[in-house]
Structure formats: structure tokens, C-alpha cells
């Protein structure tokens, strides 16, 4: 099926024609020896892209070279699209790619490309510092699993407000969180799998078994719909007043992300930023440091409504929140207009399966949701919980496990 001999390698890009199952070859990724100017160009450009944070593997570079071989190199837009379509695989990388392309191929003046990278490095440094300073204490505690703690000490720890914990207590609590994180909202999948108590005959297996008994279906294999994790979206306020709680919640989230797919996490302050990839790959402390850096403008208040709006218009439009249990973690102090909070909450609640609001202030028995943002949001909230200590996170876990849709479509 490969007929590479048929295909003259012309720089002008006149290949004998392409079509499904046609003459184009899939082998020999580099048409001309890897010393040629164009290959060097593409390889270097690939390196430039990696510098700015776009992941470019060798396979992609080979595709780009093969692609350029097939198009007219004198047309700048063809070269641009060929490189873009072979080297980039995500919509959110397009802007970075464009800037790199302009800088590299058109040698145009562009905004500095390294901004993101520096941010990341800064965050990495914070992590390193944090890890190094905390390393000793962590090791020393490896032996004290939660169960070995005295029951009363355990109870005290569970009831202690996150904001009042010492680093050691916090480290202990972290381990407990992995346990509560296992309870997650579930729903019935459309996929069926073998199950002796199933509601449908598994015909494929029935037939195979019948063969052995001369066509008589003596054994009846059943299958049933599986129950799978429901999508979970968490929006966490990381502004100054929420610091201790946000940290605790992020450890909890980290444990949840480790419990399986279908979790999306976001941090917000004055802006919204997506945390999911960070939580999956790195330490939650690092994720928090980075998120705080991006999302919080110190000295300016929290913009809950605007952040929810950003979530709705960017991620909600992509149906990320549809059918999901959405958990918002915030003290509800809105800098801007509470009406905006109400409008965006209404949109969110319409798409979501259920909305849970976790407010650490609620841990105080005296607390009344009088803050403008909180009051505006409450009508759209299915469950309102404190989340200021471990016990209330357990409660959150239990609520999530059994949550049902209450609001109308």
C-alpha cells in the first residue's frame, strides 16, 4: 500500500496526488536527509515551541517535514497551516504557536514569549522551597498512621479548624483525606458489563455457552449497566482570606483526582484558572502556588461573579458542567455586584446536576450568610456546607456520595 517510489520528492511540493488509500506514502518520514535546510529549520522551530511550553514530540516534527514536502513552500499561509496542524494539538496552544511562528519565520516584533515559562519556574521554585523546608517533618511522621493516634486526639484533630492547625497537624490530616476522597457521586453508565444480577441477557456469551450444550441455553449469562463516577467540577476560591481552607480543599481534590477521571478543578480570585492538569501531575502545594499566582491580584477583592462568568462562558459552553456535581468553595465575599453572582449562578445551576457551596465561615455557629455575594448565590445552591475542618469534609464526602438532583431543569 505504500508506493514511495512513485513519488518524486520535489521541493515545489508537486506530489503525484493524494486520496484515501492513494499513492501518498506513510513511511520514510524524512524525505530528504536530515541535513537539509528545511529539516534543520523545522527541528529548531520545534525546539522554540518546546521552549514556550508546547509539547512537540519527534513524531510531530517528522509529520511537519513530510507535510511541507507536500505543499507549496512559496505560499506563506500553506506553510503556516502545515506547521500548525502537524505541531499543535490543542486549541489553547494556538496563540502561543502564532507568536512563535511570527517570531521565528517572519522575524516580526512580538511580545516576549517566555512569560508563561517564567511563571512556571517561579512556581517550581516555591514548591522546591516548600518541599525542602517541610521534608524533615514529613519523614518523621511516616510511622504515625491515623489509626495509631489516640481516639480523642483523632477526634480533636477532626474538629480542628484548618486555619488553626500547625504544619504537623496539617500533614496528618492530609493522609486522612485520601480516605474520604473515595466517596464520590455516581451515576448509571450506558455501558453494560457481565453481572449475574443483571437485567439483560448477554447474548454473545449465551450463544457460546449454548454451543457446548448442543444449542440449549442451559446457563444464562446476564449483563447490567455499570455505575460510574459522576463528573465533578470544583471551583475553589484561593484569595487571601481563604488560604488555609483552600489548601486543605486542594489536598482533598488532589486525592479525588487520584481516585479516577472525570474531575475538573479550577481556582479563582480576581480571575479563573484551570487546575486539573496540575493536580494530576504535581504536588498540590505547587498547583496552589501557581494557581494563586495567576488567579489572585493581591489587594483587590474576590470577583466571584466574574470568575463564575468566565467559567460559564469558556467551560460551560463546552458542556464541562453539564450533568456534573459542581462544588464551589468560597466565603462568598464579592467585590463587585452581587446581581452578577446571581445571574452566573443561575446559568451554572441550569447546566449542573447539583450545586454544592462550601463556606468555611459556616463552621462558626453564629454565622449568617449576609455577605452580598453569598446571599445572591444561595437560591441556586442545593447543599450548603461548612468545610472548615476534617469532620466537615467527611460530611462533604457523604453528601457528594448520595447527592440527588433537587432543582428543576
Amino acid at each position, binding site marked *: 500500500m505504500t508506493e514511495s517510489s512513485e513519488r518524486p520528492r520535489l521541493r515545489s511540493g508537486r506530489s503525484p*496526488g493524494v486520496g484515501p*488509500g492513494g499513492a*501518498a506514502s506513510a513511511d520514510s518520514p524524512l524525505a530528504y536527509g536530515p541535513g537539509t535546510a528545511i529539516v534543520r529549520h523545522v527541528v529548531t522551530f520545534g525546539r522554540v515551541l518546546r521552549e514556550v511550553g508546547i509539547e512537540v514530540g519527534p513524531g510531530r516534527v517528522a509529520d511537519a517535514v513530510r*507535510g511541507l514536502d507536500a505543499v507549496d513552500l512559496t505560499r506563506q499561509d500553506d506553510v503556516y497551516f502545515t506547521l500548525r496542524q*502537524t505541531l499543535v494539538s490543542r486549541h489553547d496552544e494556538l496563540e502561543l504557536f502564532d507568536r512563535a511562528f511570527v517570531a521565528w519565520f517572519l522575524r516580526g516584533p512580538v511580545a516576549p514569549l517566555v512569560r508563561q515559562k517564567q511563571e512556571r519556574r517561579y512556581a517550581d521554585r516555591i514548591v522546591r522551597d516548600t518541599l525542602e523546608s517541610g521534608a524533615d517533618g514529613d519523614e518523621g511522621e511516616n510511622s504515625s498512621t491515623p489509626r495509631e493516634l489516640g481516639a480523642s486526639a483523632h477526634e480533636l484533630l477532626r474538629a480542628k479548624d484548618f486555619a488553626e492547625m500547625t504544619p504537623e497537624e496539617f500533614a496528618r490530616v492530609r493522609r486522612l483525606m485520601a480516605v474520604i476522597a473515595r466517596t464520590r457521586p455516581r451515576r448509571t453508565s450506558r*455501558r453494560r458489563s457481565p453481572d449475574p444480577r443483571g437485567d439483560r441477557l448477554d447474548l454473545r456469551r449465551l450463544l457460546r455457552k449454548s*454451543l457446548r450444550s448442543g444449542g440449549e441455553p442451559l446457563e444464562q449469562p446476564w449483563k447490567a449497566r455499570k455505575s460510574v463516577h459522576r463528573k465533578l467540577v470544583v471551583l475553589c476560591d484561593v484569595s487571601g482570606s481563604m488560604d488555609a481552607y483552600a489548601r486543605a480543599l486542594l489536598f482533598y481534590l488532589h486525592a479525588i483526582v487520584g481516585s479516577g477521571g472525570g474531575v475538573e478543578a479550577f481556582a479563582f480570585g480576581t480571575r479563573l484558572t484551570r487546575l486539573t492538569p496540575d493536580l494530576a501531575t504535581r504536588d498540590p502545594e505547587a498547583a496552589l502556588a501557581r494557581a494563586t499566582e495567576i488567579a489572585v491580584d493581591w489587594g483587590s477583592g474576590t470577583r466571584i461573579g466574574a470568575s463564575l462568568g468566565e467559567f460559564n462562558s469558556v467551560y460551560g459552553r463546552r458542556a464541562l458542567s453539564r450533568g456534573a456535581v459542581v462544588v464551589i468553595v468560597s466565603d462568598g465575599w464579592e467585590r463587585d455586584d452581587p446581581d452578577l453572582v446571581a445571574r452566573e449562578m443561575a446559568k451554572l445551576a441550569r447546566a449542573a446536576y447539583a450545586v454544592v457551596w462550601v463556606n468555611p465561615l459556616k463552621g462558626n455557629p453564629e454565622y449568617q450568610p449576609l455577605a452580598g455575594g453569598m446571599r445572591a448565590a444561595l437560591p441556586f445552591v442545593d447543599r450548603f456546607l461548612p468545610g472548615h475542618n476534617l469532620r466537615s469534609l467527611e460530611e462533604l464526602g457523604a453528601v457528594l456520595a448520595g447527592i440527588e438532583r433537587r432543582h428543576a431543569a
Partner: protein
Amino acid sequence: MSFRTIDELEEALRAADYLPDRGLATALFLSLALEKPLLLEGEAGVGKTEAAKTLATALGARLIRLQCYEGLDVSHAVYEWNYPRQLLHIRAAQEGTVSEEELFGPEFLIRRPLLEAIDSDEPVVLLIDEIDRADEEFEAFLLEILSDFQITIPEVGTIRARRRPAVVLTSNRTRELHDALKRRTLFHWIGHPSIEREVEIVKLRVPGIPERLATEAAAFVRGLRGLDLAKPPGVAETIDWAHALSALGREEIDAEVVEQTLGSVLKYREDIEAVRDETLVSLIEEARASADRS
């Protein structure tokens, strides 16, 4: 049918009533030239599915479409055994024993889109529509097929593609696709078209529409996309709306006719409510001014 240059492919797509921009034409061309599946992403209604259909027309190839949904599994995407027939066959054989080979022969195999596309002797464009709706288990399975272009059926053996189908995947990004799948595909993001192209598309799809009306409709929809709507209208909506306006015998848009027909452009009540009164009037004015300029 095959194409030597992007221009040739573009020409063929135009001949099939589809106006691709240069980027999309390049993407489709590269997908054929490199024999790599093409992943098309973009807002709803920008013509992702249509692009694959038109490619099939332009190639003179058969279009095989797999619409993805949650829970899609092998028996609906690849193949399934025809159990009722198999059972009847066993019964019909009476005391003579039925061999497994006989029972799992081709006459009992129901071929679903993926098998159909792999095991085809004619040229095929395989459209895997809305892959983001299928679950991740299926994505992993698809990955295998798209890397080797072969399917293994335990009872039959491995079926290898004699000619590789052209593969187009579309996604609305309701979730991120797995990196491994993305590594195996070319990626093209389809944005909303420029105003000139959209006018061109409307004129092509709504034959006989007055030039001015086409421009105003396209400009108005473009204005809507600039608002913060739950579902911004795509090209498909512009075409629907232009059809409606044209059918009403309009030469121009005004507040009255827009209010009557807005339902074919905006699909959510809250969006329709957001585009009332002053917003509507100013959008119409802008659209008319845009038609005056051109």
C-alpha cells in the same frame, strides 16, 4: 479521485458547494497526503461534519459515519454477531453438530461502521463524529484501530485495511481528548468564518438571495457572536436564518422581521431575551451599515 495540490482539493470542495478557508483545505489535504486522521475542533455549527461529508463527495469516496455517544461500544461501532440467526442455525441443524467455525462465519457477522471502513475495497471517508461524547474506554479502543488500521475479531482473526480510509474526527470539546489520540492525528481548529466568506457561503447555500440581505444577515449574526451568549450562532444558523428571510421575500432586515425569526438563530430563551430592544436595534443598524459599505 486524487489531488496534487491544495488548490485542486479546494476547487473540488467548492464544486461540491462547500467553501473551505485555506486552513481547512490545507488540513484535509495534509490528512490525505500524510495518511493521518484529522481532528477537527471548533464551536458548534462551524461546519465540521459538513467538511467530512464534502470531502467524500470531492473524492468520489463512500462516506461512513460513526456518530459517537456515551456508552458506545464495540458491538455498535465495530461488529456484532447476529445472535437470533445463529440460534436458529443451531436449531435447524437438528442432531448434526454445528461447528464453531460455521457459526462464526461471515453470514452471521453484522458489520458496524468501523469494520465497514477498514474492510472496504472502495475508497472511504470515515467520519467519527463528536468523539468527545464517547467515553474514554472507547477512545482507547479507537486509538488501536487508528494506529494499525486493523481490527481483530477473536472468532475470525485480524482484518487489515487493504486501503486506508481517510479519517476525520470531530469534537465539540465537551472534554479534552487523550494525548495519545491527539498524537496520532493532525489538528485543525475551525473558527467562525470571516464576514466576506460567510456572505459567500450564504449566497451559495441560499440561491437567489439578494446580495444585500445576505450581507446584512451575515453581519447581524457576526454581531451576535460578539455578545456573551450561551450558544453563539454558527454558520448553520446563519444559513437557516437567511433561508427564512429569503422565503419571507425580504430585501433587508428590520426590527420586526428579526424579532419574528430570531428563533432560527438563537436556540436558548435566555439568549433571545438578552438580544432585545436597544441591543437588537443597534445590531440591526450595524448590519445595515455594513451592507452599505460593501
